[in-house]
């Protein structure tokens, strides 16, 4: 019995930090409508700076002062980020905001290693809370008790701040209607900046308070951000009480999940999240959101199938690509295969994101599932390659069918957060369930059969499949299904009013995209000869997002170009520098801020302008009118 009580208290203590970070994210979202992906990064910087300060400053005051000072320092960094980066993208589509803050996260990860080194850092114990309290033979660290008290105290302070101060009233008003608040003469810029500072302060404080409990390391940002996303999805974005309740719930589930499913404890959290989403898609304490504000597109430029000339050009490009083995060596052919595989991966996400308007932040899950599908079939069932290639992607298909069902219940940022959380869950299973997946060691020794073994043959195989997949998905864009999918993206209200079951259409698209990604993953497993949890990790998901954005999110097949350029650049970059995340993060922010239409999108726009310049005074542009009902 005592053991369970202690386990319960440990859970409560973990909830404190989680609550601080989640409430910060919620507050920022409420006012600025930005889902701050970099929140985990601020949490991590908070922990690192607190580590340094508490090591330098001595005594009790030094420790506690160091913690608070660290949080203030990070809040200041947050202010700079808000003024320099976020102010430029408040009016960009949600997807771009998530991506820009993700770019920032990547940069921070490399910077942290650059400054503090790659090793785990173990911080000081908190003065006054060094010992443990005996509870019927079980030890409870007294610091845990401090954290248990701290959580409700912070909740109370935040409540007072929002209910009793002028600033709090403004924040609550802006959360309901920021345009109205601006119209009433409130300086919106400074309101946003101050809100962002408070949110970041909470995240950094959450990180700093962790140092007596946990080692500080450079991957803690992703771990916390996934948990925080789960918390805000369960509690409801924008609700602080919801963040508190959900933080406690998730922490307790983690604490007891280990007792029930020691190998895959994360399953329990997933189950609870799934139930909440079915019963209350907007979270326990959230409010149902009004329909999405706008489509991911920035302009209106109708899509059309390729003309026969353009088809010939595409075919010519394919033939040229197929001649690569005539003059390239083995290394280049392997790179070529990898690029072809990433074309498959990118077009599959593009289908979901551009055609369906569903920006998945966890698309690598289905790529990786396809790869693991191959590993299971080839290593455990010993099936020949051709059978594996046909059946392996089915694992991606099944994963997409299960997760997609829940994900399409939501839209916009909720959809993005949920897909990310799902991907992280799949990753955790691959990582933790060592008996089946080999855990971190992966599954090795997957080699293609002799008919596809040589680099040139494997290249042709990958190229052929990539071409096939691209043509198939493009055909679907212009199929009746594709029209229906675009319809649900543009207006769910109108779709439902003309007999379209929007969720079923979107779910189908999710499964198609997941299966296609699985095909890419299956080939990837054979290319590398092995499968690792990284094959379904977050960074791979983001690679896909960047490829789509780079090509142009509003184009029909820009992802092909985006994948080729990005992957080639990426492979080259990794060979040139150790700081690839830093460069990549900067690159992502650059695309989002100055190049939001992507390569193909920009080319199309230029061509369009030239065309429009000839017939004078053709159209009076009316404002696009979208239903807001």
């Amino acid at each position: 019995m005592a053991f369970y009580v202690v386990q319960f208290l440990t859970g409560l203590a973990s909830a404190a930090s989680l609550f601080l970070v989640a409430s910060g994210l919620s507050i920022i979202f409420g006012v600025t409508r930005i889902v701050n992906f970099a929140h985990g990064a601020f949490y991590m910087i908070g922990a690192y700076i607190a580590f340094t300060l508490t090591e330098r400053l001595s005594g009790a005051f030094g420790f506690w002062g160091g913690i608070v000072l660290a949080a203030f320092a990070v809040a200041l960094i947050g202010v700079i980020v808000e003024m320099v980066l976020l102010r430029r993208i408040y009016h960009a589509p949600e997807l771009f905001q998530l991506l820009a803050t993700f770019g920032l996260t990547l940069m921070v990860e490399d910077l942290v290693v650059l400054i503090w080194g790659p090793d785990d850092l173990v911080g000081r114990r908190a003065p006054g809370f060094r010992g443990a309290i005996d509870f019927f033979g079980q030890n409870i660290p007294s610091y845990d008790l401090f954290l248990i008290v701290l959580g409700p105290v912070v909740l109370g302070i935040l409540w007072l701040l929002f209910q009793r101060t002028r600033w709090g009233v403004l924040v609550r008003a802006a959360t309901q209607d920021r345009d109205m608040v601006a119209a009433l003469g409130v300086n919106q810029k400074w309101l946003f900046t101050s809100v962002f500072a408070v949110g970041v302060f909470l995240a950094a404080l959450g990180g700093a308070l962790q140092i007596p409990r946990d080692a500080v390391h450079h991957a803690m940002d992703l771990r916390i951000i996934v948990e925080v996303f789960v918390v805000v999805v369960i509690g409801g974005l924008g609700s602080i009480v919801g963040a508190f309740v959900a933080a406690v719930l998730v922490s307790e589930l983690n604490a007891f999940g280990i007792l029930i499913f020691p190998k895959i404890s994360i399953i329990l959290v997933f189950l609870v999240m799934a139930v909440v989403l079915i019963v209350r898609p907007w979270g326990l304490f959230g409010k149902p959101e009004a329909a999405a504000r706008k489509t991911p597109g920035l302009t209106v430029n109708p899509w059309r199938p390729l003309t026969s000339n353009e088809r010939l050009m595409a075919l010519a490009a394919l033939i040229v690509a197929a001649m690569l083995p005539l003059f390239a060596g083995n290394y280049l052919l392997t790179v070529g295969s990898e690029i072809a595989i990433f074309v498959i991966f990118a077009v599959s996400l593009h289908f979901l994101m551009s055609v369906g308007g569903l920006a998945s932040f966890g698309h690598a899950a289905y790529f990786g599932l396809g790869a693991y599908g191959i590993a299971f079939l080839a290593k455990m069932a010993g099936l020949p390659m051709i059978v594996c290639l046909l059946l392996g992607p089915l694992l991606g298909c099944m994963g997409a069918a299960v997760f997609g069902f829940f994900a399409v219940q939501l839209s916009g940022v909720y959809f993005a957060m949920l897909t990310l959380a799902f991907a992280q869950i799949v990753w955790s299973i691959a990582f933790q369930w060592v008996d089946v997946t080999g855990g971190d060691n992966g599954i090795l020794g997957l080699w293609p059969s002799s008919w596809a073994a040589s680099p040139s043959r494997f290249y042709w195989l990958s190229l052929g499949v990539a071409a096939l997949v691209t043509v198939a998905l493009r055909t679907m864009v212009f199929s009746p299904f594709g029209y229906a999918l675009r319809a649900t993206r543009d207006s769910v209200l109108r779709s439902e009013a003309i007999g379209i079951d929007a969720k079923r259409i979107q779910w189908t698209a999710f499964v198609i995209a997941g299966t296609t990604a699985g095909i890419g993953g299956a080939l990837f497993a054979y290319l590398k000869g092995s499968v690792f949890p990284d094959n379904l990790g977050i960074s791979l998901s983001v690679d896909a997002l960047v490829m789509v954005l780079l090509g142009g999110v509003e184009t029909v097949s820009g992802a092909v170009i985006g994948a080729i350029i990005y992957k080639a650049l990426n492979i080259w970059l990794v060979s040139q520098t150790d700081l690839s995340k830093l460069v990549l993060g900067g690159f992502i922010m650059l695309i989002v801020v100055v190049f939001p239409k992507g390569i193909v999108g920009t080319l199309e726009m230029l061509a369009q302008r030239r065309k429009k310049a000839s017939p004078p005074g053709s159209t009076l542009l009316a404002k696009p009118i979208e239903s807001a009902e």
Partner: protein
Amino acid sequence: MSVAPPLLAVEGLTKSYGGIHAVRGVSFSLRAGEILALIGPNGAGKSTCFDMLNGQNMPDSGHVRLLGEEITGRKPREVWRLGVGRTFQITATFATMTVRENVQVALISHGKQLFNLFGSAPKFDRDEAGRLLELVGMGGYADRPCGELAYGDLKRLELAVALANQPKLLLMDEPTAGMAPRERVELMRLTARIAREKSIGVLFTEHDMDVVFEHADRILVLNRGTLIAEGSPAEVRGNPQVQAVYLGEGLVYDARHREGAST
């Protein structure tokens, strides 16, 4: 004729939000080919009433029957399949698609081809889409991106989309709101002509009394959630209760004296 059930029969429709009775015991019926207007001051419950007819909103109690078949609480998409088209107060269209594609989506849905993955949508019922656009006077705009259209044209496009499944009943929530006076008259004349030709029942809400009295066969007056009058335009115009409601709001006389200058 007396044996066949009416096209639309509404019985005791009731909905409250918290303590507010938005709609209380509303009953009426609508014949095929008839144009029925639902009017009332702001907050009378028109939109709530409307949304409950095609499943956009769930009534607390009451029945909605289409040709005798119970459709209360059905989802909007199911109601549509039974032959009820609808336009919205604030237009809802597919902004990134062309005008023709907007109509084609409705035709695809009507033809139950929504899950056809490899057919050609641009060729799908292209002629039929063209005909529908011609019908509402949008033939020349077929290839224009929908997001470029002026508001009045969007309303006409919505009408074309609503006609795509050969509906028996059209629900139009403020079809002429936000349009210029001449456009209003044109759109309602068009609607009336189509309704008579194809024997479609039309129920519409409207604030512009000129439009209502010129085009409606029959008028329902809603005030604070209850029907207070029902009858031909002449009857409703002479009804003292209706006059009281509108005089209190000062709406009727404003509208008449200014003769549309107030748009």
